[in-house]
């Protein structure tokens, strides 16, 4: 059931990014919000829960986007490794960490995108619009990253409560 929850959230976020975000002008510069979800998973969930979700969401994003195949999957794996590494050093509930970690994630993601594009020889080196987009995404991440991570944790908490209330009770009654 937890996997189902994560997959549904990932799908909702992908749909939001592809169908809702383009309709809302002020959201045009926002970063890939799945980044925040992957970071949330990295902070608060076990590896066996996270890896299949990273695999699924990475493949979904790779197939729906115009980027080179495997780019999102690679980025999400790096983000996961980064989050795990950081949580070894700093407590996952640290507010300063929560404030900056999505921003750091977005910087890494941007670095991977630009690096890949340069490696493939398709881009001019850092034209001004690239830097504008990167900066805008960074600011969005600093402004909303901590809120999103907290929100994801909150709705997952609600899900856990519902799960325990209904499914566990039903299975107890059935037993």
């Amino acid at each position, binding site marked *: 059931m937890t996997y189902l929850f994560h997959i549904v959230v990932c799908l909702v976020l992908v749909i939001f990014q592809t169908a809702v*975000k*383009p309709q809302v002008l002020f959201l045009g510069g926002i970063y890939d919000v799945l980044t925040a979800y992957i970071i949330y998973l990295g902070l608060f969930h076990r590896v066996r829960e996270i890896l299949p979700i990273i695999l699924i969401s990475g493949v979904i994003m790779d197939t729906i986007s*115009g*980027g080179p195949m495997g780019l999102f999957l690679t980025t999400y794996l790096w983000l996961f490794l980064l989050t795990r590494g950081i949580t070894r050093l700093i407590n996952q509930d640290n507010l300063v960490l929560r404030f900056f970690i999505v921003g750091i994630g977005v910087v890494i993601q941007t670095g991977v*995108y630009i690096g890949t594009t340069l490696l493939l020889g*398709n881009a001019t080196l850092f034209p001004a*619009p690239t830097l504008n*987009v990167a900066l805008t995404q960074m600011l969005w991440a600093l402004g909303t990253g901590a809120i999103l991570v907290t929100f994801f944790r909150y709705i997952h908490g609600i899900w856990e409560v519902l799960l325990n209330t209904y499914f566990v009770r039903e299975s107890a009654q059935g037993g």
Partner: protein
Amino acid sequence: MFSKKTVVIIGVFFLIIANILILSVISQRYPTSGPGGFTISLLAPFQEAIAGSSRFVKGLWRHYFNLVLVSEENDQLKKQLARAQEMKNGWVEARMANDRMRRLMDIGRDFSQELVYAEVIGRDPTAWFKTVIINKGYKDSVAVGMPVLVPEGIVGQIVDVSGRYAKVLLIVDQNSAVDALVQRTRARGLVKGEFADQCRLEFVLRKEDVQVGDAIVSSGLDNVFPKGLPIGKIKEVAAETSEMFYTLTVVPHVDFEKLEELLVLRTPMDVPPGDDK
């Protein structure tokens, strides 16, 4: 001599006659003074006050109800206005969609091959890549490699197809390339996507004559886009990049932020539309 009963009857008769006579005499005049006038003067102010109050209360009541009715009517009129505006917006949208369709149909006449009408239903999830998802797939005979157009010019090409949907790589994506010509001088080059919804025209020899404002059209040599389709116009000529080639910035005719409906051109392509040379 007379019975008591007869006396009573006669008495009553005379009383009635006397009463009639008195009333007929009194009713012929309107007293302006005397006890009648005094009574009226005494009572009339109270009557006037009560009548006035009554009128005031009645007026208040009537106005209150009127206000309630007017308020209700106002609410209804507001609702009707909102509905009318909604309908007007719907008609304006329908008219604009109709205009767009007509223009799409118009460009459809330039081609001998079949065109598939499609709508944009999704966009790339990140700002780094430029693709759109359309609502036509292989069940609608859409296949990978087919060119996608709008009346203003080339949009891109199909890069991925499922049953009912397909992914279009826009010409402004960094992975996109279209073989192109400068329309005025027929100088050949390759239009590649750049980041900020613009393209660059590469591999145009320096010996060629190119100017800012020159129109760029597809050459047809890439076997994807038919020859002569508009792409954009030259915005900037950068001379310092290479000794052999120009690097030209091209602004596409298509506004990729406003893509709604588009046409997929089913291959094989044959007739070059509107090629003026």
